[in-house]
């Protein structure tokens, strides 16, 4: 990845300008904002009440059945885990790789990660038949000496997701400390108190900066393998089973590439409106978006290669169950979903080879949405499409999500946007300290004494 300057060509950024822009976005919100937040919250509540209904009545209110025991709850789980990926990728991996275009978007991407992991982590619980005893999956000492089954990928999964949530939240929060202190210094009253509390007494001393940059680097180094491992572990939920269509060694890299693919698309989906609404054009330049688009081309190609390799391996293995499953994917009852997946994930991103398209906001946004949809269907095709058509033809069956499942899925999107909207208004959406660091020395000089 080519490192590019975060500095836009047109306007000259200064410390003051950065601070004004970012803090400006945190100004008192208008009525429209509250309406949208309210709508999202109501959607979240509706999804939650659907879950309560499901707990009271039984899993039968969902569309899952025999043989498709895992429905869109787990599709959503994998989808959100995937979304969660690019945040850490951008903030940690690109940080280590010194890809400087990441600076302006890292914060928002990290927030997206944290929220997405939170939501992803909910879905396995929503999907549990007896969620009220979910904690039995946790390895905790107990008087009965009962431990979870460490052979089970679900235990790996639980550990991986909880680790990822912990690390990404801490990374996100610690990276925000200097900015929170800056906000503290510019606000008054109760807000000052809250931000003061959140900034943990940041004073901007040399000692603090030294510790801070070491911690940040450490977190980045620590989070980097997690990016790979979490989605690898998620893929093992499937790959370690014997289901044709799941039982494959390609799953870990395939899932990681897919996760990054979907995560980058989600970053675009969020940043393009955010940039427009907060007038962040100077902070988040078109070049940055273009860089993301270029990366999407890469991940799209990896994903496309994975699809092809899956087919090749199914054919080359000579395993009729495997081959039947893959043929059925392309021509069977879930063929529309399969072809949506191929078009959206592999073909649509190829348009980004054109510079014109990848610099056009409308195209960027449209293709990002397409990739999001495609990646959701990819999980659907993998999970549902394999289950529906397994070893024993007598036990084949078709699944369609019920209104409860769709409501809870809708609720999860509402929750995500609800959290992201709150983030957009109450926390600095672009890392001011890092932006300032990235400014060239001449620009810095324009605003002496402004350093926080």
């Amino acid at each position, binding site marked *: 990845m080519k490192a590019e300057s975060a500095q836009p060509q047109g306007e000259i950024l200064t410390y003051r300008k950065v601070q004004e822009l970012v803090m400006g976005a945190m100004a008192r919100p208008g009525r429209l904002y509250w309406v949208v937040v309210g709508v999202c919250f109501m959607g979240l509540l509706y999804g939650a009440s659907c879950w309560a209904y499901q707990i009271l*009545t*039984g*899993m*039968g209110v969902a*569309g*899952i*059945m*025999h*043989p*498709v*025991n*895992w429905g869109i709850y787990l599709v959503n789980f994998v989808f959100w885990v995937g979304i969660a990926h690019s945040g850490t990728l951008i903030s940690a991996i690109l940080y280590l790789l010194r890809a400087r275009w990441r600076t302006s978007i890292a914060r928002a991407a990290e927030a997206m990660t944290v929220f997405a992991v939170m939501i992803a982590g909910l879905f*396995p619980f929503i*999907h*549990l*038949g*007896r*969620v009220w*005893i*979910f904690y*039995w*999956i946790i390895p905790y000492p107990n008087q009965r000496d*009962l431990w*979870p*089954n460490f*052979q*089970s*990928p*679900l*235990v790996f999964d*639980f550990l991986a997701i909880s680790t990822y949530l912990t690390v990404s939240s801490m990374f996100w929060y610690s990276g925000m400390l200097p900015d929170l202190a800056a906000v503290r210094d510019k606000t008054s009253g109760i807000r000052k108190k809250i931000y003061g509390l959140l900034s943990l007494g940041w004073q901007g001393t040399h000692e603090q900066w030294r510790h801070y940059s070491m911690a940040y680097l450490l977190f980045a180094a620590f989070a980097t393998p997690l990016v790979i491992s979490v989605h690898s572990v998620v893929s093992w*939920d499937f790959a*370690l*089973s*014997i*289901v044709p269509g799941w039982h494959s060694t390609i799953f870990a890299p395939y899932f990681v590439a897919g996760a990054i693919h979907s995560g980058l698309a989600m970053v675009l989906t969020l940043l393009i409106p955010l940039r427009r609404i907060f007038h962040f054009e100077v902070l988040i330049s078109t070049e940055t978006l273009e860089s993301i688009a270029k990366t999407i081309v890469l991940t799209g190609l990896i994903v496309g290669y994975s699809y092809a390799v899956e087919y090749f391996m199914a054919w080359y293995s000579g395993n*009729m*169950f495997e081959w*039947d499953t893959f043929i059925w994917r392309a021509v069977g009852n879930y063929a529309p979903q399969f072809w949506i997946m191929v078009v959206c994930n592999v073909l649509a991103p190829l348009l980004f080879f054109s510079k014109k398209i990848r610099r056009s906001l409308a195209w960027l946004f449209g293709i990002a949405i397409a990739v999001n949809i495609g990646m959701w269907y990819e999980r659907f095709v993998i999970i549902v499409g394999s*289950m529906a058509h*397994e*070893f*024993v*033809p*007598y*036990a*084949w*069956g078709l699944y369609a999500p019920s209104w409860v499942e769709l409501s809870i899925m809708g609720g999860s999107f509402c929750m995500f946007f609800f959290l992201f909207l709150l983030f957009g208004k109450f926390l600095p959406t672009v890392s001011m300290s890092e932006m300032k660091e990235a400014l060239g020395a001449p620009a810095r000089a324009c605003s002496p004494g402004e350093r926080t």
Partner: protein
Amino acid sequence: MASFRRREFLRMVGLGGTVAASGCSPDSGLKLIPYIFPPKDVVPGKATWYATTCIECAAGCGALARNRDGRVVKLEGNPLHPVNLGALCARGQAALQGLYDPDRVRHPMLRRKDGSSGQVTWEEAERLLADWILELSRKGRGERVVFLSGLLTGSLLDLVTEWREKLGLGEHLMYEVLSYEPLRRATSRVFGLEVIPSYRMDRADLIISFGADFLGTWISPVQYARQFALFRSGEGGGDRGLFVYVGPRLSQTAACADLWVSVRPGSQRLVALGILLALRQKGISMAPGPLAGAIAQLLQGWTMERICQEARVEPGEISRLASLWASAKRPLSVASGLEFVDPHAEETAFVAQILCALRPESLQLLDLERPWCLGRSSSLAQVHSMVEKIHRDEVDLLLVHGANPAFSLPEDWGLEEALLKRKVKVVSFSAFPDEISSAASLLMPSSTPLESWGDWEPHPGVRGLIQPVMGRIFETRALGDILLGLGRRLKGHTVFQEESLEEYLRKKWMGIHSAQGAEESFGSWWVRALARGGTWEEGTGGEVAKVLGQGISPGPSPPGVDPRLDGKQEGFQLMVYPTIQFLDGRAANRTWLQELPDPVTQITWGSWVELNTEDASRLGIQLGGLLKIRSPRGRTLELAAYPTDGVAPGTLAIPMGQGHKAMGRYAASVQGNPLSLVESGEGGRLLCPSGMSLEKTGQSSRFSNTDGSPIQHNRALAVAIEAAQWRRLLEQGSPPKLRLPLPEAYDPAEDFYPSHRHLQYRWAMAVDLDRCVGCGACVVACSAENNVAMVGRQLVLEGREMHWLRIERYWEEKTPRIRFLPMLCQHCDAAPCESVCPVYAPHHSPEGLNNQVYNRCIGTRFCSQNCPYKVRRFNWFTFSRPEPLNLQLNPDVTVRQKGVMEKCSFCVQRIVEAKDRARREARGVRDGEVTPACVQTCPTGALVFGNLMEKESRVSRLVKDVRAYQVLGHLNTKPAVIYLKRVINEI
């Protein structure tokens, strides 16, 4: 069977409890512990077994009822009873749900003139009925009281006869829908006796069945299925038998045949005639005497071309069958003898029996001295004349018990209408609500056979005893007690001396005792009979006695050619076939049977019409398309279409038994009753009309079928081999390489995890596909034993049925032939379900069982996802059972709540019980001592359960059979269910 002694012991123990149970108040069994004053023989937590007789059909299989804490929770076959030798069919297993039917008539009811109905006491009801009878007797109209019942035999029949005679009442009709009258008439024409013969299929080496579904519904299916298994295994002496099925529908029985000759309904007799003709042409000697004359008369005017043309079969096919017949040592031909499936049933049966009469060896397979009691049911002509009498107001009082002609008689007789409009009063003694009882002014519900005393004589020489296996649960009385009570009220104690049916029965059996001339005192003989389940000639075990070999005559009516020749009419020929679930419809209100998939279509909860795929595509009919079926007389019925290669072109096949209007919540269906399409012919006979037409309604409906795919997509799950290949393998004698669930089968090159160590037991099952006839008895037995929830039509549609054991049905891809594959938890040694569960809910026991720990399950459903056999079932809801169906629940098995996974446990509770017993006796569990419910009830012995660690156990020997294989064995899950390939003789 090693468990004989134990059973007998238990039954002896159980005997004393009988008195306690029968003397209970109606609410017995409704309360569990505490017993402040416990009944003498009821030990809480300890099961008591009572021997009784199942009379769900007239075959009268012996049954053992397992009573726990005052409630009967399971029925099993009585291993001593000569009819069934320990097995029961699906309907027999489900007799329990008759006892606990939530829609049963719970107390006497009076329907007033204004249509309202209300509860009355027994005293009031009895007085009312006595008054009616008295009034009629006074007017000299006692003869105008008709007693209509289902088939009765033994003491109860005697009692009814006595009661009628003493009170001076009119005729007694015993109406059975499936009375096999054409078979009776044909037997009379050939052998001079109007009876239903007993058959010895096990001794045959060739069976040609002309539409007789003897493995599912025909006369005595459990017995014949067992005989069929012997016939196949050659254990009856000789080689593996050949089975040819000639009929319009590939029924469950036909699915077990080596060859299915598809003909239109009614053409069965033409094929039979063709065989006869071919035999004569081949110069096979036709027996001398009257038979030769009869055959000459029969074949007059027939040529092979004509037969083949009219029956639409290839001449080669008929000559093939004829040569088979000629070369067989002991060929047997049986015919359905039911107008519902063969419009020329009598002619078919006639020719079939002539075929048997050709050879003395065949004649030995027919037993006319032990005819089935079903042959004593009233003829349809008698029933018809009764209906006519009702129309003419010549019947004043109709007493009904256990017969439901309002559901099954041809509509044009107008019985239902007559009952409503004519002055006849109907009094119903039936235990269940039904169509005829809904016309009754007085309901005096009788107890079910499981709550009553009685006896049953399926054929001479066998008398099964019926005893109450638990107290009554509702305010009902046994029919005998009702009659005796009425008798005493009308005529006093001097005329009706017996206080109760029990006393009456004892008296009758005293007579039997003295007739047998045993030295034993009656008291101990009676106790022994009760413990054993009845009395039968020792050593018979279905043994056949002499055969009436002489005097065969063509009978009074010459077997002329029916003018209604097949194939010349327009439109479809109707057939309404009895089903394995409901027989004639009597068992339709039972969830276990409603949810038991039909063996051939795999549809649950509902009805359909089968038609040939070619007919369907010609008429543009899709699967599930709603059709309006119209008979030539204009009767219509709407049913969804099921196009299949399993029926002959030009045939409409509809299952019997659905379409009830008044039988209860589960029997209620939106579909009509196919019996309403059956018409009355001449002389009170039935006529399944031809010339049926179809009309598409444009609507369609979904079938709640349980098969995801009708074929197995070359996956070699249900495997069959040709007989020749099988014999070659037998000669080579090398057992196939299996990955047995034993440490020997582990190979570091292929296995990641080390083997499990089993100390004493490694439970396993062998499933012989060559014996499995797909009857579904095991499925129902499993549901009964393991409290498996029935979910209803909607949830089956959603793919949420809960059966732990299913009979997968696969059509062969090229020929219209079916293979059955019982599928249950395979208790794999390297079980994929075990490794993926995060909380160890599937747990591998030291005995190799794959236990599902319900309390531990958190419901991730990963185990089900990872099970290649897809035998795990998830509780999508907390399923409940309406009262009193819940009383049936087996207290030894947890009732599962929502959110947990469940599956076959190899009936672990029975294993534990057997081990406890063995431990008390300081020994190991013996081979055959543990029988899971499915194994116990299998009529053909297709399932064998045992310990793989014991080298001499039956299951250990079977896994070395040359036919042994494992389903999906290549996955290296090391399943403990070993299948034996089906053998097919290519004919």
